[in-house]
């Protein structure tokens, strides 16, 4: 296993910059997810680690060695492709053992090793079938087996679960999680599914328009999203974002918006800096931190727009006077009717504030933020 490092890596296709001066350092044995919407540069970044794209500038290091100009075959890496790329003319055993064949291993050794890996992945009884004769989940495991069959320094995954149905995806996700911790492999995993990234990663790199917006452990990303983009991308449903106007009153700040009542906040250093740029801020609250309340303090008011029952809990959405919507995750027992006027209350410590540019305003005492 080995570490991976990006040093100011840029990749342009004509006038389009897919990856823009990215610096990224992935430690030995880490499971890093590159998360972002399509076109954010996550797949291009992964393909540059594999050697399937060459950076326009910058360097890529694996285990401390500069591999920027190295052919994929010389990088000692494994990769699982989104479409699995199983060779239709080879049976499952030959597919799994192909990396050993190009390494000049004997037929005997190849098949023994394929048998062994296939056993771990529970496809041992399919070895003589062709890829077209097995299910999607089995194809996915075959492509995983092909990646595991030889020792690699880094394991790359390009949305490997996106072609599976929901149930299989959960199952495969759990298995991957177990496998990575078990083997201690360095894994880099591209996905646009935030839940997948949260579940698997030791650290997530959230990407937007070719840049890394935040690179942190999942819980950090969830609790302290660096920007409104991250706040909006992570969490299902995502964080509610409400534009507010801020006014400093002595040592405290009063935030106001239509239907929102909020106790004054202490004027922190971060707030002061943000207010210097302008009075418009964004208030963020996660749906699970909202509850139906009668009290006016620290709450958002509006008319109930939808009530979606998810079993023990419900997603209730209100429409505010300016037609924007706020969603709360509440216990189904808290009964509310569509059309009635409601208030969603929250605790002040669950509020995240973003400045006019969408960057999170740090609280007092947060080091280095």
């Amino acid at each position, binding site marked *: 296993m080995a570490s991976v490092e990006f040093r100011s890596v840029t990749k342009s296709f004509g006038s389009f910059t897919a990856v823009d001066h990215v610096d990224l350092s992935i430690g030995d044995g880490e499971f890093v997810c590159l998360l972002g919407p399509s076109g954010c540069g996550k797949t291009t970044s992964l393909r540059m680690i594999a*050697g399937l794209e060459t950076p326009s500038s910058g360097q890529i290091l694996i285990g401390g060695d500069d591999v920027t*100009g190295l052919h994929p075959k010389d990088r000692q890496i494994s990769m699982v492709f989104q479409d699995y790329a199983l060779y239709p003319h080879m049976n499952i055993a030959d597919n799994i053992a192909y990396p050993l064949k190009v390494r000049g291993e004997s037929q005997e050794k190849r098949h023994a090793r394929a048998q062994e890996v296939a056993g771990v992945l529970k496809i041992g009884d399919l070895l003589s079938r062709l890829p077209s004769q097995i299910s999607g989940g089995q194809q996915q495991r075959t492509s995983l087996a092909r990646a595991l069959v030889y020792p690699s320094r880094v394991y790359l995954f390009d949305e490997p679960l996106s072609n599976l149905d929901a149930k299989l995806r959960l199952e495969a996700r759990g298995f991957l999680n177990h496998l990575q911790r078990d083997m201690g492999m360095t894994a880099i995993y591209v996905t646009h599914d935030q839940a997948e990234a949260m579940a698997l990663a030791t650290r997530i790199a959230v990407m937007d328009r070719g840049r890394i917006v935040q690179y942190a452990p999942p819980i950090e990303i969830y609790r302290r999203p660096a920007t409104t983009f991250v706040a909006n991308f992570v969490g299902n449903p995502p964080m509610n974002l409400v534009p507010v106007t801020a006014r400093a009153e002595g040592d405290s700040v009063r935030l106001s918006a239509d239907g929102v009542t909020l106790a004054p906040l202490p004027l922190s250093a971060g707030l002061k800096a943000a207010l210097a740029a302008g009075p418009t801020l964004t208030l963020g609250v996660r749906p699970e931190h909202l509850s139906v309340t009668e009290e006016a303090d620290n709450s958002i008011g509006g008319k109930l727009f939808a009530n979606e029952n998810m079993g023990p809990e419900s997603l209730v959405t209100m429409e505010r006077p300016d037609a924007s919507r706020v969603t709360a995750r509440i216990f189904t027992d808290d009964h509310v009717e569509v059309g009635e006027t409601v208030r969603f209350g929250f605790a002040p410590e669950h509020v995240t504030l973003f400045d006019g540019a969408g960057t999170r305003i740090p609280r007092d005492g947060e080091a280095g933020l």
Partner: protein
Amino acid sequence: MKQFSLLSRRAAALFLTPAGLLVAVFVLLPFFWVIVVSFTNRTLLGVTAVHPDFVGLQNYIRLFNPSTFFTRGQFGSSLIITTQFVLLSALIGQALLGLLLAWLMQAIPPALKRAVEAAVIGAWILPEVVIGFAWFAFLDYDNGTLNMILTALGLPRGDFLLQQPFWVIVIFNTWRGAAFSMMLFNSAFSSIPPSYFQAADVAGASSFQKFRDIALPLIRGHVVTDLILITMWTFNVFTPFLLTHGGPAYRTELLSIYNYRVAFKDFEFGQGSAVGVIIMLINLVLALIYLSIGRRRSKAEREAAAS
């Protein structure tokens, strides 16, 4: 830094070499050589075979000589015969018959459909000399199947290859090539979602109305493709030679057959090349129309897909 690609440029150049050489020598070179030879008096035999003279536009002037232009067996007459042949056998015969067959195929039982398709496609895939011989036998005056049927029906028999040679090759080429149009339109029709026709059925449309109002507008692109392709192929076809040799009395001498006679019967390579240049010019116009339509359509498709 060297860009990664699945095949390096050096390897790609190597991969392209065999095909490139063959195409250069047997497609590109003939294109330019025929132009060069058309300005000479090169022949197959004699002094001018080895040392041809440059004669300027003389070959072209001879082709377009107004006093003989329309004479049977001369260039102008052949050009007119070819134009009529293309109009009647391709644009009208093959396209209309193909369209009719394809439309009928949508509405008939599968077994009958397979049988009719077998006959139509059989006419198209069999080697041209076999087809030539088959028609030679079919039209035979004394024993041919056609005259046998006419006699049985109480109609007068005819020596069609002598009496109506032009109409024989028109019908012959329509028969030979209708399969392509049929298959093209067949696949065009089957690409139309059945729900379109079912909606029209619900609205009470007749077969003809469905054809005119739904099918035809939707396959317009295929019609254009079909017309240009069959025009190009029919314009260059040599197969009627196998039935009539261009005769009798040059009455079926298409440009391709005229070119063959001038070059390989009269051994006038310079003159034949001039004919070849004119055929190529007409081909070029047709091909440019086809490719520009194809490009415009794929561009429109890309834009439609992107929106």
